[in-house]
């Protein structure tokens, strides 16, 4: 099995529902000095709308690299990355920045909040890239904070919040522009068990109740278990993976409940 491509990537497959993420034969090579370091080679991946996909694999296997390609933070050395119908590997850097602002919500391992700003102002940061009225921005910030259960703490600065709360603010920030796709790079990597479970509950709810398509990189099998599907990245290859950790033949899972 050289690629996980359960739904097929045949062009002109107009009848089939458009995939949320369609990665086709992508490679990504970094350079350490003059030596090329190929991290991803001819890798393909398809995510349906409404899917919650966990991506596991050993450290350094290229999970973040793949996630960054899908999120439009990085560009492939070769191959195609089509997200929400846009061939983002063809976009200029400037267009790509605008595309990210509209289409992707980022959740980082460390919440990466701006320390000088209150929670609600942190959540409002992506709205500065939109032309919403002040009133609409206010409304969206309130909704996002409500979804993550932090309505009462909007005025607090990050350092006055617990690690779990900070991560929730980070998730609210990812939601505020209402993107279809959330990418989470080890969102619970820095949290204890209980807090991790709460964050995962939140992600599951976002997927189930709000129809967000979620790509989550994680080390933690318990976290991966909450996803609707798990892929394993190793030696530059993707393999479908059962929750018991056994690698399985790719199976096409149905799309998660949308909206």
């Amino acid at each position, binding site marked *: 099995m050289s690629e996980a491509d359960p739904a097929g990537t045949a062009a002109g497959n107009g009848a089939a529902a458009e995939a949320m993420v369609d990665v086709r034969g992508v490679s990504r090579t970094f350079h350490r000095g003059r030596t090329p370091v190929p991290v991803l080679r001819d890798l393909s991946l398809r995510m349906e709308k409404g899917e919650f996909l966990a991506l596991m694999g050993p450290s350094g296997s290229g999970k973040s690299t793949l996630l960054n390609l899908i999120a439009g933070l990085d560009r492939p050395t070769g191959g195609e990355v089509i997200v929400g119908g846009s061939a983002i590997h063809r976009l200029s850097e400037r267009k790509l*920045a605008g595309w990210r602002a509209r289409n992707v919500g980022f959740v980082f391992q460390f919440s990466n909040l701006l320390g000088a*700003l209150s929670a609600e102002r942190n959540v409002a940061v992506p709205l500065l890239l939109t032309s919403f009225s002040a009133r609409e921005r206010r409304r969206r910030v309130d909704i996002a904070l409500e979804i993550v259960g932090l309505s009462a703490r909007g005025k607090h600065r990050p350092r006055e919040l617990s690690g779990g709360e900070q991560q929730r603010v980070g998730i609210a920030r990812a939601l505020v522009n209402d993107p279809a796709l959330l990418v989470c790079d080890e969102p619970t990597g820095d949290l204890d068990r209980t807090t991790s479970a709460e964050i995962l509950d939140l992600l599951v709810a976002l997927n189930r109740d709000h129809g967000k398509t979620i790509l989550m990189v994680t080390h933690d099998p318990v976290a991966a278990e909450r996803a609707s599907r798990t892929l394993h990245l190793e030696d530059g290859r993707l393999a479908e993976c059962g929750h018991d950790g056994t690698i399985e033949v790719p199976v096409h899972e149905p799309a998660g409940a949308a909206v």
Partner: protein
Amino acid sequence: MRLGSFIRQCQAVTRYNLETIWERRAVSVVAIFGIAGVVGVMVAVLSMAAGFRAVVTGQARDDVAVVLRSGATGASDSILNHQDIQVLWEAPGVARGPDGPLVSPELFVIIDRKKIGAGTDANVPLRGVEAAGFALREQFEIVEGRNFEPGRNEVIVGDGAAGAFEGLQVGDRIDVGRASWEVVGRFTTGGGVAESEIWTDNRILQQMYQRGNSWNVALVRLRDAEAFEGFEAALTDDPRVSLGAQRQTTHMAAQSEPIEVFISVVGWIIVVMMSAGAVFAALNTMYAAVSSRSREIATLRALGFSRLPVVVSVMIESLVFGLIGAAAGGAASWFLFDGFRAATINWASFSQVAFAFQVTPELLVQGTTLALVIGAIGGFLPAVGAARRSVVGALREQ
């Protein structure tokens, strides 16, 4: 990128940067101090030049002509005789006072006095004047004691000279060679170099210095500024005399120029060297500011912010440091130096001139401009560096 979005991005990043300045104050202070130092020194030095120019040219008028023997560069190498003065009396364009033409022949010698504080000797001009000399200087005023009486060994002392040299208070005696004068009054002339001089009666000074019936310089009040050309032409064309005339404004500006240039050149050399230091301090500060926020900048970029607002915001922050530095340096030099009195300028034709530093608004504008230039240079490389940094790379760093 639409303009509105661009402006919002710049505002957001700039505002964030500025809100976190206080947290980064320890590093920022170095840059601010550097810039404040440069601005302070620059304003101080140039205020010295400005103060000097103001005092030398301040009382000069363009309807007054300074007449010297032709070819002379100043009062000390010029001699005027009685016939010269007679020609001036009759020259076209000369204004008349109640006592006749406003022509003031004056004698000009130099005496040694000890500087207050320093204790070293310095040259002080001793000027012989007569009635027309007072008529010509409308702002002349005795502020202490009385005027000298013609024919007696009495002097009056300019306000600046009285403050700068020992033994020039009313009641003191001045002994020079065999001569001895009594200080009977202190005067002002509304500013100008005359206040750095000692005045006495022309006749007495001629006797003491065995000058017979000669003088060094004549000041001539003309009917108006336009009368100068006719007056000068008449002097040049007169075969009986060999005299040169300059407007007083031109004359004084020329006298003040070498010193002004000297102060400014020395000052600017210091300022340029300090500026280089300040640029490095600013660079250092801004690199530190940028690297302490590389993660936050990368986060903003990941969220969709573009490069340019990052550049703009770092530049604005650096310029704000420039402005704070300019305000601090300008204020410091204003409080320390504005009105600061000095009498330490030694120049052949002037001997000692008492003047006060003048911190003018133009100087503060110049200082602020320099501070902004330093801020812009110090901010540019770090700003570009921050914007070019790879987002993914910066996010990978913990």
